[in-house]
């Protein structure tokens, strides 16, 4: 019996800035990491440790200087920007600290946006999917509100719903609770946990809060560009 393919597979990933220049700096030093389907991992580390760079590389927003990255078994080395964009759109959902919702659109439309951008034209199916997701995050009454009129916690829940729109295998949550009060933070965390439990979605949860990290299945510590601990 063969093991299931990891959702994220990093092999000896290095990332340098100012490559070839005297001030060349390596910020990730040969990271090897696997995230399996259904993992719920906290990613911790001090500022400047390289965790944002690692997150960007896992999220296919940035490319490693060397090493390989595979998402759901698909090797990304050598893929052009269009192919990376497509893989990212279909496989990865993002939740950022500053939700980055599109303020010109309603909550429902924001949730529809990834599917709409992929399909080209709106349709009833994607609307129903977005409505279902908003219902799941408890925002149905606000679905037709411009997101600027929502509270911070509500906005972040919309962002979570949006991240789920394409039914991704992986959700990258970059300090999604960092700007929320305790109640809202708990609600967002519970939401991600529920998605992880019910759909088997892999979640990589960046946080500075040890209490939040405690509630995850695994903790990955990044210090000075290296993964120094795994598990608890």
């Amino acid at each position: 019996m063969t093991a299931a393919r990891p959702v994220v597979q990093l092999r000896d990933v290095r990332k340098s800035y100012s490559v070839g220049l005297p001030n060349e700096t390596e910020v990730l030093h040969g990271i090897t990491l696997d995230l399996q389907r259904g993992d719920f991992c906290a990613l911790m580390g001090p500022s400047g440790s390289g965790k944002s760079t690692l997150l960007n590389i896992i999220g296919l927003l940035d490319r490693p200087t060397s090493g390989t990255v595979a998402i759901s078994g698909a090797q990304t080395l050598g893929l052009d920007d269009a192919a990376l964009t497509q893989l990212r759109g279909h496989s990865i959902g993002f939740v950022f600290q500053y939700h980055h919702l599109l303020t010109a659109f309603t909550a429902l439309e924001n949730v529809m946006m990834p599917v709409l951008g992929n399909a080209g034209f709106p349709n009833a199916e994607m609307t129903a999917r977005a409505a279902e997701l908003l219902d799941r995050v408890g925002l149905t009454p606000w679905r037709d509100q411009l997101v600027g009129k929502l509270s911070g916690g509500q906005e972040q829940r919309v962002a979570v719903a949006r991240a789920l729109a394409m039914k991704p295998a992986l959700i990258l949550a970059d300090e999604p609770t960092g700007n929320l009060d305790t109640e809202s933070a708990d609600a967002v965390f519970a939401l991600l946990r529920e998605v992880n439990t019910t759909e088997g979605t892999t979640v990589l949860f960046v946080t500075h809060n040890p209490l939040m990290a405690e509630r995850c299945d695994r903790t990955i510590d990044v210090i000075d560009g290296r993964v120094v601990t795994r598990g608890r």
Partner: protein
Amino acid sequence: MKPTGTVGGAPTAATASTPVPASAPTAKPLQPLKSWLPFEWIVALRFLREGQVQTAFIVGGVAIGVAVIVFMSALMTGVQANMVSRTLTGQPHIQLTQPRETVRPLRDNVPGLREGAILQAPLQRVKSIDQWQGIVEQMRTVTGVAAVSPSVTGSAVVIRGNASRAVLLTGMNPDLYYRIVPLPEKIVHGTALVTGTDILIGIELASDLGVGVGDKLRVTGVGGVGATLTITGIFDLGQTGANARSTFMALRTAQSLMDLPGGVTTIDVTVRDVYDAETIARRIAGAASVQADSWITTNAQFFSAVSAQSMSNTSIRFFVGLSVAFGIASVLVVSVVQKSREIGILRAMGITRGQVMRIFLLQGGLLGLSGAIVGSVIGALALTVWQKTVLSADGSPMFALVFPVALFGWTVTLATITGLLAAFAPARNAARLDPVVAIKG
């Protein structure tokens, strides 16, 4: 059931499984997304709507620019058409005459011989165009030629009692000549019909000689041949000089008075596009052994003034268009900066560079298009007001303003293209944004 063609705006509470809290909003929902509208259009329109003050200002700016272009173009076209029309009312577009007689020294270019030769300019005799019937037929086949009319022109003296005046007589075939010079429209008394013993004179000449329709005049050509003709019509060409000197009669009558039996001195040609006259004249001169002078040559100063006017109009339009382009570009540059985080998140969601580029190109095109439509309406209104308020002394409009549909069509098209071109650089910058940098802001 959802309305046909729209998605995303279905009733909320009715379909929600979540209980509606007391704090639930009651605001009117936005217009639902249209199922026929592509993603890029939806985002572009929403971005424009979101920055509605900014959008309104730039649409206003584009509209003013387009209104100036429409107003100026229509005004200049009207002015020029009026001026050209007035200038060409009493003359053909091209006049063919026998080549001027020249003299050459007999011993020109004889090697070794140095001799002072005095060249005396020859007298230009009144003579018929050689083989004029063939040339007339040939002219009718020339592309761009609308009408051809052979005529005899020359000097004559008209006598009425003790009064006499030197005049320019023109003998013509009315059926052909009136297609070139619409003399019947200029008749103020009598008729434009002429037979062998009839003559048409201008109102100034009629006044000078104290004659009217039905009176007789003694007309004597420069060769001394004379005839008594009956005035059948009095015309007003709009110019005092022309009304005092011009006379028209049947071709045969003029041939007799000018002692040119069966001959013609000029072949008058009208072309479809007056501004093509010079080109056609050159073509004719190359093909037939005649001298061809277009109205552009014979009215060189006037044409030069018209050309200068056109050029200045074009320059103004160009610079107005340029300022419109810069206005749109500057708004979109700012918009790209303002929206950089949103662009970054769109890219993170799997939106391609091409889609991002199209979103901003569309915004440029839409700004140009909407500004052009508003500007065209403003321009048309300004033209209407101008026509009703700026009147000539008799209370009539100074001239007929033209509202060509093509002008509006071209203006809207060009403004849209200008918007697209102006948006290109900002759109490319947006598409090239590194999502990591953009999201960080």
